[in-house]
């Protein structure tokens, strides 16, 4: 399968300190990849580099375009991004205007904008918020509005940078399931940047970054077995992975079981 993002020998320094020193990463086209790492490992810097918000001389290929001044606008049209604190992203006085902002900039017709707003806000269950002021919403509502703003451009790549941290657990699960659906039905590549391994269960692949290097990379079922490496860099295993590995040690299960219903059925056959 093609790679939609190729990063080769990335070098980036901040205050004379290397954040990335010859960092390499490929992201499969159409994959749902979680990028995990402790605070300060360079995850958010990486997102900003991919978006061209932080400039480097290194080679980044995004959807067959080489990142540089000439095509930065084209690249950004293909990427929807949601940052952790949506307050920093809001520009308008109502949710409706805020979500419409990017499409207006892309010179979409008014009716098309209205149709897409209706589609995505209904999809995310926030249609009722359209007339509200973004700054008056709760943290979780703000994050869903920011997600709608990212989805509305129908990007090829959706990058979530700690984007659902304030959404409550049940709604978060529902939102992740909607994203899985979008990913499967429309072949969107999703990159979920998070410090919480629990959230990686919704994706397929996991990339673990520490001190500017890829420490582990692969399907979640393999990466989550590396308890020692993960705990050495301060990452707690998701509850089900931790439970599985401990039960495996006592010969109660044979392998990693990430689904709770399946686990109960296996234990009490």
């Amino acid at each position: 399968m093609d790679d939609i993002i190729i990063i080769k020998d990335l070098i980036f320094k901040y205050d004379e300190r290397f954040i990335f020193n010859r960092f390499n990463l490929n992201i499969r086209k159409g994959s749902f990849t979680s990028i995990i790492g402790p605070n300060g490992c360079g995850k958010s810097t990486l997102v900003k580099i991919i978006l061209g918000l932080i400039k480097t001389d290194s080679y980044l290929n995004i959807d067959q375009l080489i990142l540089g001044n000439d095509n930065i606008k084209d690249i950004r049209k293909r990427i929807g991004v949601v940052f952790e604190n949506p307050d920093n992203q809001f520009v308008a006085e109502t949710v409706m205007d805020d979500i419409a902002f990017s499409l207006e900039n892309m010179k979409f017709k008014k009716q098309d904008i209205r149709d897409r707003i209706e589609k995505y806000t209904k999809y995310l269950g926030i249609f009722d918020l359209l007339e509200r002021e973004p700054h008056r919403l709760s943290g979780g509502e703000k994050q869903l509005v920011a997600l709608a703003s990212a989805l509305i451009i129908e990007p090829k790549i959706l990058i979530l940078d700690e984007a659902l941290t304030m959404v409550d657990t049940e709604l978060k699960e529902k939102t992740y399931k909607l994203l899985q659906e979008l990913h499967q039905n429309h072949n969107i590549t999703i990159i979920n940047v998070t410090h919480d391994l629990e959230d990686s269960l919704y994706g397929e692949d996991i990339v673990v970054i520490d001190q500017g290097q890829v420490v582990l990379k692969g399907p979640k079922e393999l990466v989550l077995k590396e308890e020692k490496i993960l705990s050495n860099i301060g990452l707690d295993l998701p509850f089900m992975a931790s439970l599985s590995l401990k039960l495996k040690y006592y010969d109660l299960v044979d392998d990693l079981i990430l689904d709770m219903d399946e686990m109960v059925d296996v234990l009490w056959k």
Partner: protein
Amino acid sequence: MEIKFDSVYYTYNQRTPLNKKVLNNLNVEFKKDKVNGIIGKSGSGKTTMIELINALLVPTSGKVSINKFINKNGKKIKDVNKLRRQVGLVFQFPEEQFFNKTVKKELLFGIKYLNYQTKNSDKRCSDALKMVGLDDSYLDRNPFTLSSGEKRKVAIASILIFNPKVIILDEPTIGLDSISKNNLIKLIKMLKNKYHKTIIIVSHDVDMLHQICDYIYVINNGEVVMEGTKYEVFSNPDELTKYGIKCPKIMEFSNKVLAKKNIKIGYRDDIMDLIKDVYRHVK
């Protein structure tokens, strides 16, 4: 220190077309010297509640009693700075409010702003940092260059400098990795056990609340709909689902075994204890 809500209503943008009722006859009394957890769906009124305790908002009707301070409509609290020194509020993303060049200046800002009279402010700064596990070497550091966990600790220290009786934390673990989160959990437990603070935490991180809270209050549509010890509240998965809340994973597992297999394995705080229970039941 008593913190009590009596028939509190709160409406944003009152008397405008954008009005939104957030609190709806809310009655609750938080437990003194305990860790009290508030959970509820996004928009259920959690943050509004804590802003009322700190008198950043005034109820539309009803009253909030914070010891002898009464926050009610039409009656202005005389010494609101005194209330805010006694009830320290740490906002969501507190580190985004930093603007001083050193940690020391950041810590002293509150003292100046809330007109706090103290003879030995240097010692206050050191003591506050010590409480959050940071030493004096941080005093001259630039707060913007600290890690997220350290920033969060400095933000909490800037509240502890007043030695408040009550500490309110709004989504304190957001954005923190496991190490910083576990450190924060230890810090909150110590503030309760060693310094006997009353702590109120607003969060949707049910796994964290399960680890540190003594009491849990579930808010839905501006009302308290469930309250009790964490075991009382989290052993009711069906009712919690009605309010859009999931159980902590470790209790969800016990609840699932009971629901699917009709086997009571009981509730545990530690995963190793749960493994022992499972082993006993399965083998």
